[in-house]
C-alpha cells in the first residue's frame, strides 16, 4: 500500500442512509482523515465550501436531488474536488453515465475495503502530483523573471516592454542587435514569459550550419537516409513542438534551406530527410540577426517571402554605448556573479575604474564587458577593482596601412588564428567577436585554421 494513503485527507460523504455515513466515517477516521457528512443534497450544499474537501463520496440516489446533479453543483463550488459515486445497483449504464459526468470513479455497495483504500491512495497521489506541478510552475515563473536582462535605461525598458507584450502572443519575433547585445537572452525571456514556457526552447545557430547539414538539423532524418544515418533522428523543429524555436544568425542560412524552412513555417508540416511521414508541429518562432536583412533581401541573398514571414514583430536591442547608464548596473551584477564563482572577495570598482568602464566604446557590447570584468576579477588582488586590472587595448594591428579594411580584417584574423593554433574559441575571445561570426568570416575569406 502506498504511504500516501496516510496523508491528511478531507473526505465528504453524502448518503441518506445513516449506517453508511457512520460506518464510512468511522473507517476513515481510523486513518486520521478529516471526515464530514450530509444526509441529503441540501445539507451537502450547505456544508460544502470551496477548498475544504478533497474527495466527495456521493450516493447516486438521494432525496431531493440525484447524485449526478449534486456532483455538478459541488464541482461548481469547488472544481478541484474529486467525486466518487456510490450506487447500490451496479450497471454499465450507470458507470458510463457517471464517468461521462466527470466523476473520478463509481463504487458499488458494499465496498471492498482493499479497493477503497487503493482508490483513496490513487487520488491522494494524483492530488499531490497536481499540487507539486502547480508549485513547480510557480517556482519556474519566479526563476524566469526579467532579472537576467539587466538595465534601467529608457531604451532597454522599451525593449523589455515590447518583449513582455509580444511574449503573450504566438507572433514570430525578429531580434536585431549588434553582436553581444543579448539577443539569445532576450529570446529566452520571451519564451519564459509565453504560454509555451513549460515546453522546450530549442536554439539553432544557423551560422554554424553548412548547407548539407541544415536540412537534417532542422527536419531530422530517417534511419539510412544517408551514409552515417544509423538511427532515426528528430530535427530541431520537431523537438520544439509546442515550444519555441530560436534561430540565431538567421541571415546565414543558404537559399535551399530558406525555401524548405519557409514551407515548414507556413504549413507547420514537414517530412524527415529520407522519410514519407508528414510531421505536424506547433512551434513559436524567434529569429535573431546582426546583419542588415533589408540589404540581404535587396541583394537577393535572403528570400523576401521568408523575410516577411519572420519579421512580423521586430525588436532592436541597442548597443551598450547607446545606453551608458546601464553599464555600471550590468558591471556590478557581473562582478558579483563572477567573484562569487571564483570565490574572491571583491566589493566593487574604484572611481577611476567606473569612469573608464562608463566611457569605453564597448564594440563587443555586454559580451566584451563580461570578458573585461572576468579578466579583471582574475588579476585583481585588492577588494576593489582599479583600472590596472583592465586590458582595453587591442592587440597591435598589422603594420601595412595601405590595405582596404576587408584585406586588413582578413589578414588580422588569419594572424590571430595562427597565434591560437586554430583554436576558434580562443581566437574569437581575442577578436572579441562570437564564434559564429568568426566561422562566418573564416568561410567568407577562405582562411586556414
Amino acid at each position, binding site marked *: 500500500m502506498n504511504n500516501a494513503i*496516510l496523508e491528511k485527507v478531507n473526505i465528504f460523504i453524502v448518503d441518506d442512509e445513516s449506517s*453508511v455515513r*457512520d*460506518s464510512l466515517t468511522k*473507517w476513515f*477516521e481510523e486513518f486520521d482523515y478529516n471526515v464530514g457528512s450530509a444526509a441529503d443534497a441540501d445539507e451537502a450544499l450547505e456544508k460544502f465550501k470551496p477548498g475544504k474537501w478533497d474527495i466527495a463520496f456521493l450516493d447516486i440516489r438521494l432525496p431531493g436531488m440525484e447524485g449526478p446533479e449534486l456532483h455538478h453543483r459541488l464541482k461548481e463550488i469547488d472544481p478541484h474536488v474529486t467525486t466518487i459515486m456510490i450506487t447500490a445497483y451496479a450497471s454499465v449504464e450507470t458507470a458510463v453515465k457517471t464517468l461521462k459526468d466527470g466523476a473520478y470513479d463509481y463504487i458499488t*455497495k*458494499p*465496498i471492498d*475495503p482493499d479497493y477503497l483504500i487503493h482508490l483513496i491512495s490513487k487520488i491522494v497521489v494524483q492530488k499531490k502530483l497536481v499540487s507539486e506541478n502547480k508549485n513547480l510552475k510557480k517556482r519556474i515563473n519566479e526563476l524566469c523573471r526579467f532579472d537576467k536582462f539587466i538595465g534601467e535605461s529608457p531604451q532597454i525598458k522599451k525593449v523589455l516592454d515590447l518583449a513582455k507584450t509580444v511574449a503573450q502572443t504566438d507572433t514570430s519575433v525578429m531580434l536585431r542587435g549588434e553582436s553581444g547585445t543579448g539577443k539569445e537572452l532576450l529570446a529566452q525571456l520571451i519564451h519564459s514569459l509565453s504560454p509555451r514556457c513549460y515546453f522546450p526552447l530549442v536554439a539553432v545557430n544557423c551560422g554554424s550550419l553548412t548547407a548539407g547539414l541544415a536540412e537534417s538539423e532542422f527536419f531530422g532524418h530517417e534511419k539510412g537516409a544517408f551514409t552515417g544515418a544509423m538511427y532515426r533522428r528528430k530535427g530541431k523543429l520537431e523537438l520544439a513542438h509546442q515550444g519555441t524555436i530560436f534561430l540565431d544568425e538567421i541571415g546565414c542560412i543558404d537559399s535551399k534551406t530558406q525555401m524548405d524552412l519557409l514551407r515548414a513555417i507556413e504549413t507547420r508540416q514537414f517530412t524527415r530527410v529520407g522519410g514519407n511521414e508528414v510531421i505536424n508541429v506547433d512551434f513559436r518562432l524567434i529569429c535573431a540577426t546582426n546583419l542588415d536583412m533589408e540589404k540581404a533581401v535587396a541583394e537577393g541573398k535572403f528570400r523576401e517571402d521568408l523575410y516577411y514571414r519572420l519579421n512580423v514583430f521586430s525588436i532592436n536591442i541597442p548597443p551598450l554605448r547607446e545606453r551608458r547608464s546601464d553599464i555600471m548596473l550590468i558591471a556590478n551584477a557581473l562582478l558579483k556573479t563572477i567573484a562569487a564563482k571564483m570565490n574572491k572577495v571583491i566589493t566593487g570598482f574604484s572611481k577611476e575604474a567606473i569612469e573608464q568602464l562608463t566611457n569605453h566604446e564597448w564594440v563587443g557590447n555586454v559580451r566584451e564587458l563580461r570578458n573585461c570584468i572576468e579578466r579583471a576579477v582574475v588579476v585583481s588582488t585588492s577588494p576593489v577593482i582599479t583600472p590596472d586590472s583592465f586590458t582595453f587595448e587591442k592587440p597591435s594591428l598589422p603594420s601595412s596601412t595601405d590595405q582596404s579594411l576587408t584585406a586588413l580584417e582578413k589578414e588580422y584574423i588569419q594572424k590571430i588564428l595562427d597565434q591560437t593554433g586554430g583554436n576558434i574559441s580562443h581566437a574569437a575571445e581575442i577578436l572579441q567577436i562570437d564564434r559564429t561570426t568568426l566561422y562566418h568570416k573564416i568561410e567568407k575569406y577562405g582562411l586556414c585554421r
Partner: protein
Amino acid sequence: MQIYIIPLDFEDEEILDRLAISLKQVFQIPISYVPIDINLKKGWSQERSQLNSTWILSQFLEKGPNDNSKILGVTVYDLYTPILTFLFGEAELEGRAAVFSIYRFQDELYGLSANQENLEKRILKEAVHELGHTFGLHHCRNYDCVMHSSTYIEEFDFKSENFCEKCKSILHEKMNN
C-alpha cells in the same frame, strides 16, 4: 483500568488464555473475561452470512461493564458493516469497545492447511490493533507497526505485533491521562 475479553461463540479457551497473557504484557493492565448476554442472531445478516460489527459494539456499550475499562470481543463469525464487504475488526476510536473476527485469519480459508502459529499471531496482532484504536491510536504509516492498516492477509502477516516508537509514545501518553 482493565481489559475485558468477551468470547462471542469462540470456544477455544487455550487461545484466549494465551491472548490474555500477551495482552497483559503489551498494555501492562489487568485482563479478565466477562460474560455478556448478547443474542447474536439480532446482528446476523442472513443475506450476507456475516455479523454486523457496529451492532456488536453498541451491544457491548449497552450491556457491558459501565466503567473506564476496554471491552474486546472475539468471534468466529465474519464481520461486516453496511458499507464495507468485510472487516477484520472494528473499534471505537478513543472509546471503550472493540471486536474482531478470527474468520479470515484461518489459513484454511485460503486453501492452505491449518496453521495454529499463524492463527495465534494474527489474533494477537488484531487484538492489539483494535485495542490501540480504543486508546486513540490512528493507523500508522510504518509498515512494521501493529497499527498499520491491513486489508488483506499477506499485508497483515507483514506487520509485527509491536507498536512503533511513535505509537508506543502516544499510547503511553493516552494511558496515563
